[in-house]
């Protein structure tokens, strides 16, 4: 076996996925964007040759899936070349796109270059609502035209809908839309409150009763649409019993390369102060995976505190999300307060209930390049 060797563990499993954030540029301005608050500018983006080298390194390291993401990945002039590089290396390419602006114009060439799969975001079904959430007029008809072309080309289509207070009533309609557009998969992904979503949390947090209803709707639809539509459900963890394994466990399955070449264990990892990230310009992906301080910081279970350390779920959820632990508990090595075993869990739930009960949701702080809100953290944090 060619697993990377690691000083403290004899055989480190190879990563399975690479999230390639090709650019932070995006025509949409969704208030829950998973990009960092400080967005990278075009002039600092990696060039084509560097991405091609990174992809080749990823393939030899053991990566199977490449998620071509952003921002809007089709905003890059070389998106077709990058996709072709994936195909030539045998990497499974997944285009994560908003489907607006120039995306449709490039789609046929992407398909010819060997693109494997398209994941299209939808903000809501009802156009006015969708365009209010995404902050872009006339986006909805572009998205529908894009979806139509994806299926006409024979490419598999997944719809991804991030769910929050502003669209949770539309979950049944989103399921119908996925069927109507010919999607094989639908991701009903409740908002994860990091980055821009953390800033906008009070505007986005849905009520517990609505969350429960949305989960029942998905479960019924899964049964009804068996063999026709696969529905993946990401539950909102402020209301959950146990946290999610961050990216399948820190430094276990996933690498994330930012537009400027910084390599992160998860897309929000830069919010944790003091972590040292390595760049693809300075090190190979294999070196970074094995030895970069950021990947080693929370890999495995040695870093854990109680109640994680002695918990029999420690290798299931790997302590939950480090970024959320920092944001809510003030300590990146604490148990994720989304976990019911965290001493802060009660406070987190109370906070979610209080925010979701606001009679009028606050206005969104839309994502903008160079327009990071002065307070990255809502009043009163930690928790």
């Amino acid at each position, binding site marked *: 076996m060619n697993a990377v060797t690691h000083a403290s563990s004899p055989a480190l499993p*190879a990563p399975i996925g690479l999230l390639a954030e090709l650019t932070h540029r995006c025509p949409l301005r969704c208030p829950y964007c998973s990009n960092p608050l400080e967005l990278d500018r075009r002039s600092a983006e990696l060039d084509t040759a560097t991405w091609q080298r990174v992809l080749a390194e990823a393939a030899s390291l053991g990566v199977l899936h490449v998620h071509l993401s952003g921002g809007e990945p089709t905003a890059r002039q070389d998106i077709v070349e990058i996709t072709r590089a994936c195909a030539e290396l045998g990497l*499974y390419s997944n285009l994560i796109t908003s489907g607006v602006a120039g995306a449709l114009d490039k789609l046929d060439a992407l398909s010819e270059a060997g693109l494997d799969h398209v994941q299209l975001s939808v903000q809501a079904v009802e156009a006015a609502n969708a365009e209010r959430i995404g902050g872009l007029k006339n986006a909805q008809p572009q998205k529908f035209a894009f979806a139509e072309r994806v299926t006409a080309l024979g490419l598999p289509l*997944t719809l991804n809908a991030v769910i929050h207070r502003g669209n949770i009533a539309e979950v049944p309609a989103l399921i119908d839309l996925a069927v109507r557009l010919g999607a094989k998969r639908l991701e009903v992904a409740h908002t994860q409150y990091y980055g821009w979503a953390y800033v906008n949390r009070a505007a986005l947090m849905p009520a517990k009763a609505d969350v429960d209803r949305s989960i029942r709707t998905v479960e019924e639809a899964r049964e009804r649409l068996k063999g026709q*539509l696969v529905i993946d459900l990401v539950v909102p963890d402020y209301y959950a019993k146990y946290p999610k394994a961050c990216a399948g466990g820190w430094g276990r399955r996933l690498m994330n390369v930012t537009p400027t070449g910084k390599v992160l264990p998860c897309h929000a990892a830069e919010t944790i102060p003091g972590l040292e990230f390595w760049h693809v310009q300075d090190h190979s992906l294999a070196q970074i995976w094995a030895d970069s301080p950021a990947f080693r910081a929370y890999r495995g279970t040695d870093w854990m505190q109680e109640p994680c350390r002695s918990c029999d779920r420690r290798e299931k959820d790997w302590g939950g999300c480090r970024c959320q632990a920092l944001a809510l508990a003030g300590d990146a090595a604490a148990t994720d307060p989304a976990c019911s075993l965290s001493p802060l869990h009660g406070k987190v739930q109370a906070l979610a209930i209080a925010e979701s009960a606001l009679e009028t949701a606050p206005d969104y702080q839309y994502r903008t390049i160079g327009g990071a809100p002065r307070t990255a953290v809502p009043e009163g944090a930690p928790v």
Partner: protein
Amino acid sequence: MSLTPDSVPRLPRGVRLRHDTVRNAHVLLAPERTFDLDQNAVAVLGLVDGSRSIRAIAEALAQQYETDRSIIEPDVITMLDGLLLKRVLETVPAA
């Protein structure tokens, strides 16, 4: 919805059988997921080509393993039914 011996299965676009050289294992790559395959699954999927029926696949396997088709066929159907439900397998429409 279920497969029959006459069904002709194929992998749809976006689903690929691949040998993973780093882990020395066969995997089925699909949208947002990877299926680890055992030897039996690899033997079946290696015969899924959009022209063989399930009967023909089971027949080929029966010869290969020197056993009776009727023993193998139900297992082939069960395995492929599972992939059909997950939308990573489709059937060629009858001509």
